[in-house]
């Protein structure tokens, strides 16, 4: 637990950073779309943090829920009504329901089984979206959705200022919600389950339902992130289900640090900026550098690559086992 003064300092820092972020699209309009995308991806990383950092579930297919949210919101906008907030709610609801149903698959078995099952789930959805191209547009992607004005007033502009503000606001609210949940007694039981499921069960924590809750909650947030990407870019492609996307978000979370709420967000910002810089130099071989980075993190250890100064501090208790 943090002390009260620490909490105020934390609020000040986070408030300041978000104020800067909210200002960015208006100060640098050419970067507005980048801000919108980064905010959506940050929300995605936050959702994986719940699953991996707080519940300790190693997932290699978290993009499944991201993609489901994206397609749900996209199809809703195209076929039913163009209101963004309703579409967002639909994306969240569909992803959450699917997360709840799929939580059955990650309750039992080892890390290998979980990696397998999550990966298979995202590939299965990829295959479905690819085959049922009459609905999803298949390999061409889902096109032709027109977004209505936000709250009935603010039109989505092409430059991306309104979408960026919208995505940032959703990210901010999600961050507050996650913060509140993980600091509640419920969050404490999640950590207990992550650190030692046997002991957690022994002190009376319902392990299965806690894991299911974390998985469904993470899925709901991933669905929100997917819906945001669909709405702000007006386009959904099959790539939302790809293994690269799942690996990207894993890397973001690891860069920022799993097991604390700001890890995913910071990691996403770092990742996107890095991507922008490296991809500007060698757009084609970005995956190579990303792979090298992943390899280095795995080989040398997350602490040593990302926070060299941490070696001289007391050992961290946040590391995910």
């Amino acid at each position, binding site marked *: 637990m943090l002390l009260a003064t620490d909490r105020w300092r934390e609020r000040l820092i986070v408030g300041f950073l978000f104020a800067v972020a909210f200002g960015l699209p208006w100060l640098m309009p050419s970067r507005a779309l980048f801000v919108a995308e980064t905010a959506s991806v940050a929300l995605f990383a936050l959702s994986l943090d719940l699953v991996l950092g707080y519940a300790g579930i190693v997932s290699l297919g978290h993009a499944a829920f991201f993609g489901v949210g994206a397609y749900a919101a996209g199809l809703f906008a195209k076929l039913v009504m163009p209101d963004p907030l309703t579409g967002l709610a639909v994306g969240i609801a569909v992803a959450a329901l699917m997360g709840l149903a799929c939580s059955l698959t990650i309750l039992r078995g080892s890390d290998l089984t979980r990696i*397998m099952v999550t990966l298979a789930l995202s590939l299965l959805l990829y295959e479905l979206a690819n085959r049922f191209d009459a609905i999803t547009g298949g390999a061409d992607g889902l096109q032709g959705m027109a977004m209505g004005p936000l709250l009935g007033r603010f039109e989505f502009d092409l430059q991306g200022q309104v979408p960026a503000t919208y995505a940032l606001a959703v990210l901010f609210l999600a961050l507050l919600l996650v913060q509140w949940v993980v600091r509640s007694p419920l969050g404490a039981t999640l950590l207990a389950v992550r650190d030692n499921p046997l002991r957690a069960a022994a002190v009376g924590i319902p392990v299965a339902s806690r894991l299911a809750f974390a998985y469904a909650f993470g899925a709901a947030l991933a669905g929100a992130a997917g819906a945001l990407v669909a709405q702000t870019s007006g386009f959904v492609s099959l790539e939302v289900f790809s293994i690269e996307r799942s690996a990207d978000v894993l890397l973001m979370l690891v860069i920022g640090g799993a097991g604390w709420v700001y890890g995913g967000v910071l990691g996403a910002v770092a990742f996107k900026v890095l991507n922008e810089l490296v991809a500007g130099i060698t757009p084609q071989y970005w995956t190579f550098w990303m792979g090298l980075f992943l390899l280095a993190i795995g080989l040398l250890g997350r602490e040593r690559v990302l926070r060299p100064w941490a070696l001289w501090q007391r050992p961290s208790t946040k590391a995910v086992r």
Partner: protein
Amino acid sequence: MPTLVFDGIAYGMLLFILAVGLSVTLGLMNFINLAHGAFAMLGGYLTVAFTQRLGVPFVPAILLAFLATGLVGAVLERLLYRPMYQRSHLDQVLFSIGLVFMSVAATDWLVGSQQQNIHLPGWLQGRSEFGEGALGMGHYRLFIIAVCALLVLGLQAILSRTRFGARLRASVDDARVAAGLGIDVNRVFSLTFAVGSGLAGLGGALGAEVLGLDPSFPLKFLVYFLIVVAVGGTSSVTGPLLAALLLGLADVGGKYFIPKLGAFIVYALIIALLLWRPNGLFSRGGSGR
């Protein structure tokens, strides 16, 4: 129908050769190596290079691919993999998926992203029909089945008859006790890793014609390898073999009867299977790995 079964068996045999190394490394060191497919891809590209650039005949070329991939596996094991054994599964996943991405991008850069074709010698081309078209057997697939069957018998004999096999089984069962008995578990593991990588390379060389060969190979077949291991368990040769055959038959059958759904069938089947038996169909249970 018999043709389908035949193709499925050939496909399954191929998957077995590709994945058997992974099943041993997973069982022995509890190491999640997602980069196994990169070795298979290396074997495939080496065969293409040997046969087309250097003019080596097909059979020596795949043997060379086996040796070269095994050598690369041994070197990488010593340099990169060994420090990773004691780490968390998350670190292992990050490390090995990073290796996969690097191999994909590097291959793309070196050779280009187009499909590679392997020119088969004349005696492996063509097919034989039996019973008025009821059973058509491609000669190349027959060759694959024969090679793989020999390998299965050989592996089984090594595992059950030789001193090395006994050491390997002891190390898989309990590495600590095996080390306590004076077995050099690290050396057993190095050798096994090299042979497993070599077999993956051989599988990639043999499979290039059937599975296709392009830089996305390690990612495309990653889930297939994992299925063979997760379903077949890590404690024997027969478990992964049966799992690979099942997978091959299900995949070929699914794609033939319901082409619309394609690989969907396999993925759904696997999720259902792992829901039912989270530790695989053929594992001895209890270990929780």
